[in-house]
């Protein structure tokens, strides 16, 4: 493993750290994730080297060479800045004629979720969400300038399907608050399958550990919102549902607060499960 590259806002991403780009243009394009911005686009004639990526936040550069994604893993902080294509857990505040007004983070302006932007929604079949309901949604646009409005969506406009899977209202279980940095790490850990679970993804093993140890109560479901909220449910756990959900929440929050390393995370999982009488 190479040493992590830490970038500060405004720093340029060195080209040798980008996923290898094949010279012929037919290969899949490079995807830019959270915390980076393309400053100058390479024209077709020039070499790919003229592409300039700059960091907009401080963070560690992470690359996924298989899927050709380059993004910035920011540090744990509480403030969430919406970026396009982020998956978020929004809480409905109220609804108006065409929109649900949602809270991404408390005490910030509302985000708008059109009432028809759900899978298969029409004027008659649109979901009836009330205050306090949660929606797993994608940030569609963030707007420009001071009066920027954040728009959310639960469908892919091209296909009309809830893509990626799971977008839409969430029911059951509960949500836990974590830092945005932790949310980003959890997203990495849950979206990419770790071949070797002992190693962990993005410095996290709690999810794979909990997955293995909670298999006897039927496993759990997780939806990570980049706005620092994580939804957890154990639909098959029956009488163990509450302690199992609490165990997951507590492991995530303690790992986040104390910045635990892999060994400590494993200890934490074992200890928490024992405390909640889910394991001997």
């Amino acid at each position, binding site marked *: 493993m190479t040493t992590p590259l830490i970038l500060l806002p405004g720093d340029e991403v060195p080209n040798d750290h980008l996923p290898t780009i094949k010279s012929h243009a037919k290969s899949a394009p490079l995807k830019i994730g959270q915390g980076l911005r393309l400053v100058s686009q390479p024209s077709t004639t020039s070499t790919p080297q003229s592409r300039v990526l700059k960091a907009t936040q401080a963070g560690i550069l992470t690359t996924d060479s298989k899927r050709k994604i380059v993004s910035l893993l920011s540090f744990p902080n509480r403030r969430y800045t919406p970026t396009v294509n982020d998956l978020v857990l929004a809480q409905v505040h109220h609804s108006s004629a065409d929109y649900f007004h949602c809270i991404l983070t*408390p005490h910030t302006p509302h985000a708008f979720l059109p009432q028809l932007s759900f899978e298969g929604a029409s004027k008659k079949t649109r979901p009836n969400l*009330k205050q*306090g309901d*949660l929606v797993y949604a994608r940030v569609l646009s963030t707007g420009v300038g001071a009066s920027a409005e954040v728009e959310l969506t639960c469908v892919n406009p091209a296909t009309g399907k809830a893509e990626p899977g799971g977008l839409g209202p969430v029911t059951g279980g509960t949500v836990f608050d974590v830092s945005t940095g932790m949310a980003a790490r959890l997203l990495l850990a849950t979206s990419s399958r770790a071949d070797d679970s002992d190693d962990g993804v993005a410095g996290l093993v709690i999810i794979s550990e909990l997955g293995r140890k909670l298999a006897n109560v039927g496993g759990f479901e997780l939806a990570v919102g980049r706005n620092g909220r994580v939804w957890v449910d154990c639909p098959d756990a029956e009488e163990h549902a509450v302690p199992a959900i609490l165990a997951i929440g507590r492991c995530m929050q303690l790992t986040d607060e104390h910045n635990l390393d892999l060994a400590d995370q494993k200890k934490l999982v074992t200890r928490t499960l024992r405390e909640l009488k889910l394991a001997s």
Partner: protein
Amino acid sequence: MKVSEINVNVLPEIPGTSEFKYFTHRLPVLTFTLTSPLCLPPSTKAEMRFLSRLCRKFGTASAVPAQHSLLSFGTGQKMSKETLAAIEHEFILSGLRQGYRHDGRGDNDYRELRVSFGQDYGHVNLQLGKTSVIVRMSATVGKPHQDRPFDGTFNIQMELTPMGSPGWEIGRPSEYESQVLHVLDRVIRHSNALDTESLCIVKGVSCWNITAYVHVVDYDGNLTDAACMAIMAALQHFRRPDSESRGGEAIIYGLEERVPVPLNITRQPLCVSVIFFNDVNNQLLDPTYKEELAADGEFVIGMDDSGLVCFFEKMAGVASQPMSTLDMMSVAGERIKEHNAKLQKALKADLAQRAELGMTNEAKAANDR
């Protein structure tokens, strides 16, 4: 008559006397004093009978359901305008039904309490879980109130700023702020914890004005208890400059001239906030922010080490059960004793450290000479 609130206050002026205040729509409708106060721990049944007789006598029992004869109140609103996600609220309640709190505490447990002191006298940093409070004391010389020429003054100042929680705004005091201040005022100031007569320098001319400034640095519920503990610790930690009256003139000695004097603390009252829920039979101490949001009602008990109640108030929310409320009194008494012991221990440790530092400084000064 529908009673919305009952206040019990110990009157500092007349020792061993409590004042009962009955409120309807936030207006006091009935006030009477009692010479045998609700001394605690309560002899529950006798106390209850006595109190319910009082209620009947004053015609309050007939207006409210029988099972809520004593501590039944009109339905108030929730304390905060912020809301929890619906599933989060439901999960907190279902956890409580099965006996789980989010952080693994028991119903009557407090979060970890950490107290440390700054370099100056009367500078206290106190953390209760993630709620963090800084208190600083100040002493200035001023004129006493005209109607109380023998008394100095003591004030508590607090402003909730966005530093503590993004929901708080500067210059726009929220209802919550005035509520917390009201409780602190009642518990610490009105119980005469600080003997204001000892602050008089020259009768009617000059006295000490003591102020406690409360800064909320981080907020995760139960600000009242944390602030109360911090102010009490600061009062006991603080040393004011020595003063003297000579021929009707006030003489103030600087900190270098004379050893500064501690304040005269007559008792050490602290408060305990209790939240409760409509359909869950739990009463929780030291609620976190989320638990506060989920709660249906809250009451605050103020008490000193000997179990003398100096404050009891139920601000808003649904009716509470009288028996369990009285049970809570004895629990609160235990907690207050524990907290006072912790504060004393921290104060003693700090004093010892200061004494040691002072000796080494003196030795150093002697060496320099």
